């Protein structure tokens, strides 16, 4: 992962000229959030909901899947926390390509 940089002690995203962390837009946080939410719901369903041993052959499938999802979610959130993606403030604009008719870049890249 060439984006990976050593943990920077959580420098914030508002530092004027430098760079900022991808934060919520980091896909690892999104994966962690969704799987974690599913993990919580399934764990609760396994503990509180009706158990259907006839279907699963006696295993509390909701509970075990829920716990498994919680572990995976925690791993993703931890990974994102330990090695945040740093988004540079200035991204190189793509070159104009002489072999194609257009587009001519008529405006500066939006910030």
């Amino acid at each position, binding site marked *: 992962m060439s984006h990976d940089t050593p943990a920077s002690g959580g420098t914030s995203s508002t530092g004027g000229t430098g760079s900022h962390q991808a934060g919520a837009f980091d896909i690892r946080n*999104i994966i962690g959030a*969704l799987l974690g939410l599913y993990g919580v719901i399934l764990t609760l*369903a396994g503990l509180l909901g009706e158990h259907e041993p006839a279907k699963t052959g006696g295993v509390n499938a*909701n509970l075990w899947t829920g716990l498994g999802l919680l572990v995976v979610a925690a791993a993703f959130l931890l990974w994102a926390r330990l090695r945040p993606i740093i988004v540079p403030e200035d991204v190189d604009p*793509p070159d104009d390509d002489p072999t194609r008719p257009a*587009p001519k870049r008529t405006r500066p890249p939006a910030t």
Partner: protein
Amino acid sequence: MSLQLAPVVPMATLIDASWLDYLLVAIYFAFVLGIGVMARRSVSDSIDFFLSGRSLPAWVTGLAFISANLGAVEIMGMSANGAEFGIPTVHYFWVGAVPAMLFLGVVMMPFYYGSKVRSVPEFMFRRFGTGAHLVNAISFAVAQLLIAGVNLALLAGIVHALLGWPIWIALVVAGAVVLSYITLGGLSAAIYNEVLQFFIIIASLLPLTLIGLHRVGGWDGLNDKITAAADGAPAEAAVAPAAQQLESWPGQALSGFDSPYLSVIGIVFGLGFVLSFGYWTTNFVEVQRAMASNSMSAARRTPIIGSFPKMFIPFIVIVPGMVSAVLVQEMIDLKNGGSPAGGASGDGVTYNDALLLLMRDVLPNGLLGLAIAGLLAAFMAGMAANISAFNTVFSYDLWQRYIRKDHADDYYLRIGRIATVAATFIAIFTARIALGYDNVMDYLQTLFGFFNAPLFATFILGMFWKRMTPTAGWVGLVFGTLSAVAVDRLAAAGVIDLPGQGAAFVAASTAFVVDIVLSVLVSLVTRPKPVSELKGLVYSETPREDLVDPDEAANPWYQRTIPLAAVALAMVIVLNAAF
């Protein structure tokens, strides 16, 4: 409107979902749309929109690469094959996918990524000029619309089976959801969602497989039950012997050949070479994922990283199919030659229902919702991938080059969004075509034969033979496709008598051979491009250092292309020997 509006009446559903299942599905859709909204904030110009600014790490694009392919056909079709044929279905993965993915990463990706093309047709433009480009761009755009229709039809079929909604409502709703997240965020959102979908699919299919195996008494219990079922099946059901269902080679049940030698040859050359290399190396839907990565090294590693999950996906799609065939009463009846009522289509159970019926029988409410979310996710992934690839090719390769040149970047971004809306709308109608086929897999294989086989032939010849001329480029494509269509029509008329996908395979092989032969003949009598224009496009004219990432040598072995590919190859050989 040619849509036939079915009467809106409450229907019996195949699967009983509770509020808990609906909650899990609703959370998934909230995330999907949320990603679109978030991605929109970071979309700055059209490069960002179409290729995500080439900023994604290799593991993200690698999973998206697999997820773009882990659609309806993969999950439903392969579990159906698992129920019918058993273990030999793994050839679709270990012979029919992994070697081609490694070849793409090691050999072909440097040309794609290094030449900075935004699409496969654009590569054709650089190599062969206008003729081949126009032919390829149009045929690609048409193919994407037809295949998006297949995905949409399957998606709507599942919604219909699970929720009981009429097909036409399911079609429109599914189309609207896919549309909203692509138009909101572009390829970035599509790729992010694909990675998310990958995890949801694994999270739902893995428990399904484990619980299923638990119910039949583990792997040994499954083997015993399949052996007993095969021995006890009536002769007229034509069930493959247990030995053939439990060993991958020589796979006669799958290939349809009686001779084991012909079967091995058929699988290795037919499935493993023409169809598989043609599909994986020229399919822009997949290649586009790799081009969104942040370096040449990451682009080359994208299909290679993808090959690792690809190797193990058979265990969570084929095994549930095999379990379903010995555990679910309808499937047992079907395999014994019966024709039980019910099924997703409503016209009787087919092997396509293997996975759904197993879910119904073994998953408790809660996990069931997760599985439904996973299936919906997979089908949406397939369609979204088609639509975003269409979008890129239409706006850059057709509109910009042939219709309106020299407009500002904003303009093409806007055209891209309009094309997305139009493509989704058209897909609702091409879905009606797909619904007209008894077996959607046949239809899909036929389309691949038309579009991918000749493209692969032209590509591989053009990449390794500098003498190949621009005229040969478009002539080969046109006549390759036409010959495949001709074979298909002859088969449809009954002149060529081959079962199911046999005709599609012969059509693809014919297209490949016709394309190569015509390209060579035409090249010998027309003028080639000057050698100076072929740098980065033809193997012999490209300096070796342009084909590798200079920074890659400093990485540890697991972040380098060749060692990673070697590990993947070794693993897939071990898997072939083990099963």
